[in-house]
């Protein structure tokens, strides 16, 4: 099983440039302010920067944790496939860096429906054959 998280430097042309190169927007905004305002807001800018840095670390942690959780789900579903032939439903939610991913995995052989359909078909055939 290859790691899907690697090689994430693909073409991001449809995404805004800020997404592919985060980390300098606040500095740039501060640098564009007049000196007096820059001095007045420097403390708040620093606080926001620290806050964003903390959020970046949290996002990184969420990304790692959700990668592990997703890989575990894949392993569990494969194990389930190998061990049972009956129906199953797996629902999972992962807290990711950008938000959350919800997945529903459902195996249904539709045995009951097929049996009912066959019975109805037989009844219809018998009815029309008379």
């Amino acid at each position, binding site marked *: 099983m*290859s790691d*899907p*998280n690697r*090689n*994430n*430097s*693909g*073409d*991001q*042309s*449809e*995404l*805004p440039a*800020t*997404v592919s*190169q*985060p*980390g300098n*927007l*606040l500095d*740039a*905004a*501060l640098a564009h*302010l*007049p000196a*007096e*305002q820059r001095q*007045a*807001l420097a*403390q*708040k*800018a620093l606080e*926001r920067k620290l*806050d*964003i840095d903390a*959020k*970046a670390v949290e*996002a*990184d942690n969420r*990304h790692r944790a959700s*990668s592990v959780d997703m890989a575990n*789900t*894949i392993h569990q*579903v*494969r194990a389930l*496939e190998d061990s049972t032939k009956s129906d199953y439903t797996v629902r999972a939610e992962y807290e*990711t*860096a*950008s*938000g*959350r*991913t*919800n*997945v*529903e*995995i*459902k*195996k249904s052989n*539709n045995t009951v429906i*097929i049996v009912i359909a066959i019975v109805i078909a037989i009844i219809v055939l018998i009815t029309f054959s008379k």
Partner: protein
Amino acid sequence: MSKTIELNICSNCSNTLSGYGNLCPRCGHTIPTENAAEAKTEQAVIPRHTGYSYYMSSSIGGIDDDVKQIFLSLPPEKLSLVFRLYGQRYGGGAQSYAQSTYYSWRSGRVRMSGMVAGRLLNLVPPVLDPPQRFELVKKVRSAHLRKERKYISCHPTDWRHTVGPIVAQFIAASQNVQIPPYVLDRVCWLADGDAAAAQRLLAAAEQEEAAVRLHFLEAEFKRIDFMLQNIEATKRVSHTIELPQGTITVSIAVPRKGFWSCLGSLLS
């Protein structure tokens, strides 16, 4: 319901004294009105009625309560500056009433009227330190930042074409947040340079935060694609992108098996 007043520029700190007479709320410097060279004046229109409603309170993010609390705990030198500004703008009678009632407001024995609270909304913030004013601007701004919610559907391989433009639109929304003119008319200091600078900084911070959250988006969609390729029984996948500007819910189209392949897998 408006009157025309003069706008003075403080010669000491270049602050705009919109509606504060000749006393600078920032540095306390008094501009002699007869000195025409020192005071540059221009015309501006401010509302005559300074009371405010619940609607007004919500349109300024509830900072009226914050301003009231800040006013009731101001240090003596700033408090006396606020009272001087109060007197200059609303007259000596109003000033002496405010000064004599201050401790009753503080103890809670007397409830501050909406009119006084509305007046303080314009008089207190200009005397505050920039970080305190920044927090007030932040609250007003978030009251006008409309968090959007979008639902879209796409295939994991072409998500960039569908999600990309919407993400760009969300991020750009931070730059387009504008405090409506009726709020700026009521709360004059929000139009000052400092408040505008704080807004620019807040917009940049929101965009930066969005960028941080979206940094792994590419990897996240690859992961979803990987899951779809590896688990045939996947029925539904959705990914919710939560940004400071709003939420985008992406429904990933799961490839459906045809009738014959279903029948084939059933018989095998």
